[in-house]
Every structure is written in C-alpha cells, then in structure tokens.
C-alpha cells in the first residue's frame, strides 16, 4: 500500500525492520521542510503571523494526538523527545514521590529497556519491589498472569501494548479494567502499537501512556507522554527553564505554568511535532484498521512461505502483530542479517533490546522481520528466495 509516497523504495530497498523505526512518507518530510522554509519561528512567543502559525500548528498536533488516543483533554498530551523521556517523566517525576518502600509494581520480562531500567533505578532508591508477571508458553502475557501477581501492595502495572521482541499484543482493555478495579495505576508503552492498531486510553483505563513518533511514520526525536489530568498535575517537572514558568522573583518565589506547558521546558522539537501531526493525518487517511488487517494478511503469507525454507525455526507465529522471529539452522542471527543485506534486505538480528528475555527464552539471538503496510508479497518472495540460497551465506564473508 501507498509505496509511491516513500522515495526510499525507488532503488529496490526491502525494509523489514519497522519495529526499530518506520520509513517516512513524503507528506511527513514535506511538513517538516515547510516549517523550516516557510514559517520558522518559536512557539508561544511572538505577535507576528508566522509565530502565530507555529502555535496553531503545534497546538493543532496536540489535538490530533488527543483524538488519536481518545484522551479527554489536550492538556493530557505532553510532547517529549520519545518514549524514553516519557517513561522517565512518569517514573522519576511521578512515581518517585508516589511509591513507598513497601509497595509493589508489576512488570514483565518481555519489556523494552525503557520500561525496565528506570523502574530498577528507582526501586534501588526507594526500596519498592518489582514483581515480574510470568509469560505464557508462547511468551505472551495474559490477564490471568497479571492477576496472579496482584496483592494488596500492588500500586502499578507497567507493560507494553505490543512488545518489540516478541510482538505479542497484550489484552490492555482487560488488564486496564483489572487495574482499575483494584485501584492500581496502569502504565502502557504504546510505542510498537500506536502506528499499527487503535489505542484507546479510556477503553483501557490507562493512567499513563508513552510512544515515539518515529515508529509511526514520524520523525525521530519526538514522542508523547499521556497522563490522566489529575495524575499529570502531580508530576514534579524534571526540567525547569523557559516556556514552563509563569513568573519568578529574586526572593526565590516562582510560579509554574499550567498543563501541558509546565512539562514542556525549553524550546521543543517544533519541526518534529509538526511531522508527527502529518504522520497522524497520514495514518488516519489509510485507517489503522486497514493497516492492521493488511499486516496480518502479509504476516500469514510470510509464515506460509518461510515454512518452505529448510532449517527455519519460528518462535512466535501465533502472535497477532506483524513481527516474526526466526532462526536459520545453526547460523548466528547476525550472519543471516549481513547475508540478507547483500540483497538490500534489512532485518534485525540480536536480542532486540529486551535483555531480560534471555532469562525466559533459551535462544535470544534471533532474526526479526517486522512488517508495515508498505511491505509487499513480492518483497517476501525475494526474502524467501535469498533464504533458500542459504548455502551461499558465507560466500561474501571476506
């Protein structure tokens, strides 16, 4: 679908690493170029036309994000530099004064580093306990496995909607309902799902949500922190400076701005936010449901075809996202990835930044194909053709 909007594919590149980052359509690139060439100005500052236009565009994207995730108010949308900064705000700006020594939080070992390391650091400081929910046999995470770990000390459940390493889609609506019933805050990492399926913060009773623009056709260096208004109000800003203060005096008194600006210190990534807006428009035009349906059809095609390749072992064929993990016989994943690169096919090799998973899965070094709507059956045919020539894998090693 829509390949004509992606100039990068004109030279035969086959890009199957969409869980790492997605390609950018010309509409997104043009929106950024337009800001830099037609109306560069700072936001929330000037009384002149182009500055007002920047405000309109920048705040317009906040509305678009609000609509996209079904937030109640655009005040609940904070622009960050990506999921990692969003998580650090949630964990060090809110949880650092919310959690107490005897509390427990529930995570899973399938999470990305950005949803594990900050918790580990804070847990060392405050002494609360991190409890890891068990994964099912297919490495997915069920409501039941969360339920099993909930105690009267549980204060937070923090998980990805879709994991980057396994690609399993978590039943966030059910898990959110469970958290809500038990007075537990529900933190969701939507980085891998936001550009692929509907995310609804109301339906899933989500307290805080994080995602990055670059995995949903947008530019790098920009992301979103969503929080319920009453929770965001309680975040103690991690950054202070321009754009976030209302007034300050030499007496030491100061007053901060209201949400959302209080949590957006300094000049933000205006071009990035505008690019994110164009990406949301682009995704809405195709329709997230259409994207998900197409990806699933393509994934089925990939699974059927890859099974015809001798020595292929699949790890997650049952999961409901466009991510497929495999190994080719005893070949090391990186050797397979470099072999495919000779044919301009980009896949990811390694443990996909989910380093704790090696405590759960014996084989963590895998090849990962992650699909998006612009991938085609013809590209999959080419991948299969190269994998069938696996005896040539070391022909170009020197």
């Amino acid at each position, binding site marked *: 679908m829509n390949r004509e909007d992606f100039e990068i594919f004109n030279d035969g590149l086959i890009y199957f690493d969409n869980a790492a980052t997605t390609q950018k359509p010309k509409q997104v690139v043009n929106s950024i170029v337009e800001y830099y060439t037609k109306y560069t100005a700072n936001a929330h500052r000037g009384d002149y036309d182009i500055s007002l236009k920047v405000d309109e565009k920048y705040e317009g994207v906040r509305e678009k994000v609000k609509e996209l995730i079904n937030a109640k108010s655009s005040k609940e949308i904070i622009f960050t530099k990506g999921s990692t900064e969003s998580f650090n705000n949630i964990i060090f700006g809110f949880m650092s004064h919310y959690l107490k020594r005897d509390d427990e939080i529930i995570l899973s070992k399938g999470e990305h580093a950005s949803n594990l390391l900050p918790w580990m650091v804070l847990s060392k400081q405050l002494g609360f306990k991190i409890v890891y929910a068990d994964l099912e046999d297919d490495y997915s995470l069920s409501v039941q496995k969360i339920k099993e770990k909930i105690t009267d000390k549980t204060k937070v459940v923090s998980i990805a909607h879709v994991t980057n390493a396994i690609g399993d889609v978590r039943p966030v609506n059910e898990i959110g309902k469970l958290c809500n019933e038990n007075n537990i805050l529900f933190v969701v990492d939507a980085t891998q799902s936001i550009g692929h399926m509907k995310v609804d913060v109301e339906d899933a009773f989500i307290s805080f949500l994080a995602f990055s623009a670059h995995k949903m056709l947008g530019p790098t260096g920009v992301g979103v922190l969503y929080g319920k208004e009453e929770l965001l109000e309680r975040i103690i800003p991690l950054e202070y400076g321009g754009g976030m203060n209302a007034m300050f005096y030499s007496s030491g008194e100061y007053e901060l701005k209201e949400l959302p600006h209080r949590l957006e210190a300094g000049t933000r990534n205006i071009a990035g936010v505008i690019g994110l807006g164009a990406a949301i428009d682009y995704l809405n035009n195709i329709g997230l449901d259409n994207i998900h349906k197409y990806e699933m059809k393509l994934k089925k095609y990939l699974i059927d075809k890859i099974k015809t390749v001798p020595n292929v072992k699949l790890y997650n064929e049952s999961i409901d996202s466009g991510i497929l993990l495999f190994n080719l016989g005893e070949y090391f994943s990186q050797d397979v990835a470099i072999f495919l690169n000779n044919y301009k096919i980009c896949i990811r090799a390694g443990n996909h930044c989910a380093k704790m998973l090696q405590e759960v899965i014996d084989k963590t070094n895998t090849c990962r194909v992650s699909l998006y709507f612009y991938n085609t059956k013809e590209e999959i045919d080419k991948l299969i053709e190269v994998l069938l020539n696996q005896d040539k894998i*070391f022909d170009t*090693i020197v």
Partner: protein
Amino acid sequence: MDANLKREIILDNYQNPQNKGLPKDDSYKQVNSRNESCVDNITVGAKIVTGKIEDIKFDGDACAICTSCSSVMTKALKGKTVEEAEIIIDNFDRMINEKPYNEDILGELNIYNEVYKQPSRKKCALLPMDAVKKIIDEE
C-alpha cells in the same frame, strides 16, 4: 592471500573453533566482551604466569567473524609474553582500522585484512582482542 583460502580458514575456525570452552580454574582471569549492537557475546579467559600467556581460551555466542577470530587469536597469543601479545593486538587493531601495520607479526590473523570493507563486521573482529586487552590491563 587468495579470498577462497581466507574464507576456508575463517569458516574452519568458526565451525571447529580451537580453544573454545572455559576451564573452571581460578588461575584463568576472565573478561566478558559484548558488542553494543546486542549481538556478539564472548568471554575470554587467560592464564598469565610471570608475564607469559600460558593458556588462553574463550566461550560464548557470536557470529562467524567473531567466533573464528576468537579461535585464531587464542592460537596466536598462546605461549606469547604479555609484551609480544600487546604488539600483536596493536597491529591487529591497526589492520582492522585501516592504519599502517606490520603484517609479518600477525601470521594467520592476516585473514581478516579485508574486514574493514564491511564496517558492521569490524567490531566483531575486534571483540576478542578487546577482552584480552582488558585482561592484560588488569594484570
């Protein structure tokens, strides 16, 4: 050296690596070395007695270049003095990073003299030597 011959030696050391497997012996100082791109992961263990590498072994999960290079490196460094080892490591590093080096002292390690053409492989080739450097530095 002929490319086919180089490939053959690399693959032989990958498929049948020498000095693989770490002994449970405290006299071997061990250092783990990882590729930041989340892939290669090897540990090198060396027994150094009065300035000489009496034995050196490795273990881990790594690609063809890293595994074979670990094998060839252990063969090259076993029995060498620390000073000799340092010279070999320095020249190998120079070769991989396209700086002037003395190929005469690298012996079989010269099979990696074209790794620089594949930038993503450079780190794989340097990983085992990085581990040895750390072991020597800690001595």
